[in-house]
């Protein structure tokens, strides 16, 4: 049985390959549709993983109340000492963030200034790919830059670059499982405070690590309560919730793109359906001949379904493959309020794209396949 199915699948593939122009045009449309769908899906998936709080997320972000941009959130650095005294607080890291553009943008340069000795606690998952951590610690204007940022700008260790009015020397290139870390430049906090002309003693935010995830809420409340009557009150929330809020406009925009994804799916469905319908119409007599030669209706059904599946799988494969190539080549990022997301397709997104394309091929060819398999032979031979 399996052997016969394979032979019929190959026969269907042969028919498509030898009707080259028609097949290529259909594949062009299908792959464009699946390219669009997979790109949108990659954006959704990237945002989803950036905003979903997991069990290991025990970090709070303390921001200036009613401020959303790193340029306007200014908090006194000495708040850190007071926070360290609150119950449940394990560590407090003051962070200064400088960006070239606070609004939604596809090309964001982000500098994160942290006390040099705290970097590995602030971002414990980073791995040094090139350069030296020690050199960075000893170089006031040194920067450790994310891999994607380095690749996108063609930067190597020893190079100097300037962004947002800050000029730094690349001391190392880092990689992290967290997308944001791969897109930023880590610099010394005092250096960034001076370079951005806000002065020493002012930071953008504090990253507060708590002992357990259950304490996130109580510690956040305690921090905000502590500074409620200060000149610079705070607003504290979990890191990913902070991201979701700060990048709210971007998330709304990306959420809207799901409709483009749905439209692409419908377009692919219609395209394959139309192609298969034309194939079946043009092959009424051929199918009757196959039946005359002993092919049962179910074999005709399977042949037509196979052609739809081939078109879906091949078009999907091309579209999804192009997405993977394109996103890895261009490494696009999008950001808002200093929060950036790297648009990288993950394996589940690619698999979903491929599986969906195959399913669309089968679905689109189901009705034409049923019609083709049920048509009486004699009537078809006369057509």
């Amino acid at each position: 049985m399996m052997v016969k199915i394979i032979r019929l699948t190959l026969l269907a593939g042969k028919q498509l390959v030898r009707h080259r122009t028609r097949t290529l045009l259909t594949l062009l449309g299908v792959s464009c549709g699946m390219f669009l769908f997979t790109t949108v899906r990659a954006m959704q998936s990237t945002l989803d993983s950036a905003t979903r709080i997991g069990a290991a997320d025990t970090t709070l972000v303390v921001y200036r109340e009613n401020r959303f941009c790193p340029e306007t959130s200014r908090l006194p650095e000495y708040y850190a000492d007071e926070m360290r005294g609150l119950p449940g607080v394990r560590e407090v890291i003051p962070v200064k963030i400088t960006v070239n553009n606070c609004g939604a943008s596809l090309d964001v340069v982000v500098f994160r200034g942290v006390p040099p000795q705290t970097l590995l606690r602030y971002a414990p998952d980073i791995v040094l790919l090139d350069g030296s951590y020690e050199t960075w610690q000893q170089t006031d204007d040194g920067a450790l830059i994310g891999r994607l940022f380095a690749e996108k700008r063609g930067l190597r260790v020893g190079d100097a670059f300037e962004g947002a009015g800050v000029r730094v020397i690349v001391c190392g290139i880092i990689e992290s499982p967290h997308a944001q870390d791969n897109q930023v430049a880590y610099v010394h906090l005092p250096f960034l405070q001076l370079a951005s002309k806000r002065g020493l003693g002012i930071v953008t935010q504090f990253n507060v690590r708590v002992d357990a995830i259950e304490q996130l809420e109580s510690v956040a409340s305690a921090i905000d309560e502590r500074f409620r009557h200060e000149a610079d009150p705070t607003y504290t929330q979990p890191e990913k919730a902070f991201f979701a809020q700060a990048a709210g406009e971007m998330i709304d925009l990306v959420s809207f793109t799901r409709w483009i994804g749905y439209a692409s799916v419908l377009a692919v469905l219609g395209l394959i359906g139309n192609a298969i319908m034309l194939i079946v119409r043009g092959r009424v007599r051929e199918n009757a001949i196959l039946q005359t030669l002993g092919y049962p209706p179910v074999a005709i059904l399977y042949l037509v379904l196979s052609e739809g599946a081939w078109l879906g799988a091949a078009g999907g494969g091309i579209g999804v493959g192009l997405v993977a190539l394109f996103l890895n080549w261009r490494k696009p990022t999008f950001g808002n309020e200093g929060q950036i997301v790297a648009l990288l397709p993950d394996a589940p997104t690619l698999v979903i794209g491929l599986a969906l394309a195959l399913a669309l091929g089968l679905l689109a060819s189901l009705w034409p396949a049923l019609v083709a398999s049920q048509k009486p032979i004699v009537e078809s031979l006369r057509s």
Partner: protein
Amino acid sequence: MTTSHDYPLIRCKGLTKHYRKGRQTVTPLSALDLDVPRGEFLALMGPSGSGKTTLLNLIAGIDRPSEGILEFDRHEIGGLSRGRLARWRAAHVGYIFQLYHLIPVLTAFENVEIPLLLSGLSRRERRERVENALALVGLADRMHHVPSELSGGQEQRVAIARALVTDPPLLVADEPTGDLDRESAASVLALLQQFSAEFGKTIVMVTHDPRCADAAERTLHLEKGKLLEAEEAL
């Protein structure tokens, strides 16, 4: 006592076919009785609309009778389901069309191989069978040509190889020389005669052409869905 060998390969009793055309019921074949012995080369002649192609289609199992009995090798085939009838055709019938009906994008080899794809034969066995069938019709050197690269006579010979490749006991041919020049027609008829005489194939052929019918052992005439007696036909 009738032995299995004496019993006709095809037996039609009261074979009738109706179909609806708009509001009318058309009866192209009416209460027809016919026996076709094993190994016979039979020609069916008659004017257009006489029911000869309908009879051929019933015998080939691509259509089903409305009434009557249609036996093949003592087995009633008129009542088989579409799926069973397809499997029966695959095993017992080779069909030769007037317009060859080869699949244009496939080579001669691939066209002939089509009926074998649903068999349990291995690739090597299929290749052997296809090459033998094409050699038998004299096209061993054309097996990798697509139909558009072949002449009409060659296309019909590929179609004959395709009908023969499963080694069916029955070959049915609907005007097999109707679209061929005289020389090609003669070569096709010679092949059919060879298959009947040498391989014992039972052949039922529909034709308009009396010269073509001369190649058969027996010729029957149909008119208005009924078989004519010999003297009527004359």
